């Protein structure tokens, strides 16, 4: 499945069932280290096949939240249910529903790629024939089949990251949890990793993705939870989050002709808050910018303006985060 197919699948919901029962339920998760509250009463749910992004700066509580979800850490308070089964640090079999990809490259450098995968697969109790098949499949998925016999210590950073993800997929989990999987990765490998995740999500695997890279979360996730200082301060689709803060889209119309006439006409439209002439055409601030496009084109034609291009720039999550917390994501 290529990137375009993935995009189409995301748009159409192909391979997903977004109205099914939640695959993950987190209720009132809390964790304190000494005097510091790392996670403070966090609750959210992820539906089957949904990609959910947990966005927040370093130290916001993303990894601690994920650690409690995966049963790596004791919760001070709260409950985690994955595929109908409660998860805590003593759980064993119920953890099989989760595929965890930690922030670090959690692999053994002195084992080969295939040996690493076989080891992790065995821990999930995969029978030897199934394990062999799954190792081959995930190696193919992450493009490491040719290098599978080499020790991981000889892999590049990007290859290690890809194998790190592969290790979380062996047992075909219903929920894939990725904790900042692209940290320190070159752009090419980063794109390959994101494509893999898009592909898996399009095929129906639910994804919980944490990052402080706004672009990644925007690209991958259906819904986003914004976490800061241990608290989930906002949640929803990107559009919903943007609407929460009441920001408008910016529409850049590249055009030639009577631009002032076009700007004046645009200002009269109900959803346009402002319009002005720029160096290359007319710039407008509007709600639901994409929906405005047919009207803008019609208006331009009436004003005798020849339009060469239109770009709708929606407010991003960075702006949302800045609005909610008063600080930038990378602070």
């Amino acid at each position, binding site marked *: 499945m290529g990137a375009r197919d993935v995009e189409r699948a995301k748009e159409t919901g192909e391979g997903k069932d977004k109205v099914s029962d939640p695959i993950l339920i987190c209720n009132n998760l809390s964790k304190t280290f000494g005097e510091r509250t790392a996670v403070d009463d966090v609750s959210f749910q992820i539906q089957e096949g949904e990609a959910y992004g947990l966005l927040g700066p370093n130290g916001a509580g993303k990894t601690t939240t994920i650690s409690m979800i995966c049963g790596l850490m*004791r919760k001070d308070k709260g409950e985690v249910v994955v595929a109908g089964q409660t998860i805590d*640090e003593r759980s064993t079999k119920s953890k099989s529903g989760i595929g965890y990809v930690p*922030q670090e490259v959690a692999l053994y450098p002195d084992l080969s790629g295939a040996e690493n995968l076989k080891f992790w697969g065995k821990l999930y109790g995969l029978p030897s024939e199934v394990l062999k098949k799954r190792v081959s499949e995930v190696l193919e998925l992450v493009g490491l089949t040719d290098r599978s016999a080499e020790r991981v210590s000889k892999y590049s950073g990007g290859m290690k990251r890809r194998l790190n993800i592969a290790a979380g997929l062996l047992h075909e989990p219903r929920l894939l949890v990725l904790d900042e999987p692209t940290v320190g990765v070159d752009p090419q490998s980063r794109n390959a990793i994101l494509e893999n995740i898009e592909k898996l999500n399009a095929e129906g695997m639910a994804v919980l993705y944490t990052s402080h890279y706004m672009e990644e979360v925007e690209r991958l996730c259906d819904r986003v939870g914004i976490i800061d200082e241990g608290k989930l301060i906002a949640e929803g689709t990107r559009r919903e989050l943007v609407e929460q803060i009441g920001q408008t889209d910016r529409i850049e119309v590249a055009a030639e002709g009577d631009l002032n006439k076009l700007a004046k006409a645009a200002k009269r439209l109900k959803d346009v808050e402002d319009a002005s002439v720029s160096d290359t055409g007319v710039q407008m601030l509007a709600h639901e910018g994409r929906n405005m496009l047919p009207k803008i084109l019609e208006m331009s034609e009436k004003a005798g303006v020849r339009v060469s291009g239109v770009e709708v720039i929606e407010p991003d999550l960075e702006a949302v985060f800045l609005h909610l917390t008063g600080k930038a994501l990378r602070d």
Partner: protein
Amino acid sequence: MRNAFTIAAKDLRLRFRDKSIFILGFIAPFALATIITLAFGGDALGGERTFGLVDQDKSEISRAFAEGLKSRDLEEILITKEYADVEQVRRLIDKGDLSAAFVVPSGFNAAIQSGEKSHIQVLAHPERQISGEIAGAIALGFTSRINSTSLAVSTALAGEGPPSPGRVNALVDEAALIEPPIAVVERSAASSKELKPASYFGPAMAIFFLFFIIQFGARSILIERAQGTLSRLLSTPSSPGAIILGKVMSTFVIGVASLGTLVITTSLVFGAEFGDPLAVAVLCIVTVLAVMGITGFVVTFSKTDQQADSIGGVVVMALALLGGNFIPINQAPELFRRLADFTPNGIALKTFTELIAEGGGLLSILPALASILAFGVVTGGIAVFRARRMVLA
């Protein structure tokens, strides 16, 4: 349980790929044991020892002592040559031609007959401590026996009036023959085998390096935590207990393999003898468990791998010095000999030597095994408790 085996198998594979295990577990202890063994000179490799005897007393009892030294029981272990001059014997010892020598002073017989304590002087080169110890044990055994016999004779003659010298001598000979000095010497002769340096320093070095090998295994939890694999292990259907058990199993296998290999190798190469194989095997296993407990204890009280390495190094050196891994503890001052009884390695080394000296089996060393195991159970129990908390930190 299945996951514990999987984790143990993975750890073993990683350890064997990391060549340091061969250095720490086999090469280094064997090399050090060899060097120390060779440093003990003729005592180390040769089973034969030549002892000198200067008989200045020329009495029946001194002759009995000389005959005892040349008896069939002792001739397999030592050769005795008689000399007239003490100075000549000293020179021969200095040159290394003699391992040690006995000097029966004039008046030895008279001292016995008058009921006084009698002594046989032992001469030995300072660097040949083991030969000196053997000679000392033989002389002490003989004089103790003859002094007690003298006392028994004196008691037997009481009330008979003044005895004639001939009567006294006859009774002394008779009493000595009933319990000949050789009976004492036989025990010492057996001890001469135990005292082969390889028999001592083989296990001593193996136990010393065992601490490092096992410490590395115990530290692997900290290493896995630092590299992130511990989190991933916990995310799988593996309980913290299974993870710890896997580590314990792999560490145990490596520890027993290392100690066992060293014992076998020193036996094959240096002819070291260790006594009853079953008892030795159980002793090795129990020692490994005790070392695992102690190193696990140290590691679980450390926050980082580096801290565990540093603290562990200090603890190992202290235990090795107190337990007699570098210097035979029987040559140490009394205080150190007592302290060695409070270290598992000290008790283990003592038990290794006792197995040869006394020729006992598993039953005879049960108290020692229990003491060593107690170290392992107490420290290991705390370590396992803390390890569970550490895994889920």
